[in-house]
């Protein structure tokens, strides 16, 4: 039986912002019969033509700079059943490690042709894929010389409230893993679950390297949509 305790603790003092922002009392365990059955569902029609392609959805006068990649994977429940029609929202830094956020002060260039936002819906088998630019490493103020490993943020709306997940996808072999308190907050055996795998099978010749990132959401109940 694998260790199912995968989530970071609420309080992880090495990540300083958790100190004043984490609950101090035990959470109330909600029994299954008091939970809700569904989460909102979004139709295909809500997606824009290039929502799944971050290399195209913010072009102004050319292509964004950096290494084009494909990210693909499957969203499933804990029994491995694919979850269809799950909304995945995406955001990330550009190739230089710069976020398009007004409060961002990192001295690295913005890319006029890259916003770093996208979204996809999973297909009937729970699969998704999108194109983007590989994000750069990013310095932050948590401690002296603090750098975030390259990562892509995911917000996932599963079928139940307990399947509402926000996470980050990392890239294999990043030397910053050992120094990043956010990555390190994850229990040791579960850290591998946050790291995408390079996939030659999905790599597109003359176009883009591919990374696989499957996501498993809490629970194993049937959904009203199956």
């Amino acid at each position, binding site marked *: *039986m*694998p260790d*199912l305790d*995968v*989530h970071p603790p*609420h309080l*992880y003092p090495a*990540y300083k912002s*958790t100190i*004043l*922002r*984490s*609950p*101090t*009392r035990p*959470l*109330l*365990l*909600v029994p299954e*019969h*008091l939970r*809700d*059955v*569904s*989460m*909102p569902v*979004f*139709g295909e*029609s*809500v997606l*824009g033509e290039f929502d799944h392609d971050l290399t195209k*959805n913010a072009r102004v006068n050319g292509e964004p700079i950096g290494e084009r990649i494909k990210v693909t994977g499957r969203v499933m*429940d*804990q*029994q491995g059943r694919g979850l269809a*029609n799950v909304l995945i929202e*995406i*955001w990330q*830094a550009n190739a230089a490690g710069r976020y*398009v*956020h007004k*409060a961002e002060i990192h001295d690295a260039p913005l890319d006029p042709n890259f*916003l*770093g*936002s996208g979204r996809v819906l999973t297909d009937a088998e729970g699969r998704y894929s999108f194109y983007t630019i590989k994000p750069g490493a990013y310095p932050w103020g948590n401690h002296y010389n603090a750098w975030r490993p390259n990562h892509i*943020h995911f917000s996932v709306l599963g079928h139940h*409230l*307990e399947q*509402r997940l*926000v*996470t*980050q996808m990392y890239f294999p072999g990043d030397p910053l893993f050992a120094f990043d308190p*956010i990555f390190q907050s994850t229990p040791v055996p*579960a*850290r591998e*679950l946050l790291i995408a795998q390079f996939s030659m099978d999905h790599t597109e010749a003359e176009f883009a390297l591919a990374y696989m990132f*499957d*996501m*498993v959401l809490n629970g*194993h109940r049937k959904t009203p949509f199956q």
Partner: protein
Amino acid sequence: MAHLLRETPSQTVGPFFAYSLTAEQYGYPYTSLMNHAMVSDQTPADYAASERIFIQGRVYDGQGNPIPDAVVELWQADPQGHYRLAPIGPRNGQPGFTGFGRMGTGTLPDGQFRFTTLKPGVVAGANAAPYINVTLFMRGSLRGLFTRLYFSDEVDANAQDALLNSVDPARRHTLLAHREDQNGQLTYTFNLHMQGDNETVFFAFAP
């Protein structure tokens, strides 16, 4: 039970979610699928008799300071107690009542959020009182936080609600939104406190 796969671990939403999750609210050039309006400007005819309400509040850190970079999501049943099952969309269409809202706390004064919705009905089952599911993400929070908002003017129904009754009586008040009439706008104020005497009761869902 068969072997369960391990869940994907949670990570923080970080400080820079706004240009994706709440782009229009923050003025970024990207469309938003959801915002503060959980019902269209014109109340759908099916709900013409329902109360149009505002849900407002702030999220406070352990020193009592409002948090200006949190994301708050609300999800609720309609006035008849039914969650929306129909897909939301198309974009820029007339969604009617969605029951789903999302706001960042970085655009209104002092970290305020303020949603427009209809007061939910009671969901059949073990629930006796109307409520709204509240989900909270923020920099400094490594996991999503879940709670419920109940209504201060539903005293009798609240007293019968199974989940509310399972909360330590001394902490039940942290789940109550307080009703007031603000210049003719029926407003419920729901503040979340991460720590301290009024620390909000947050929920966990074991598999």
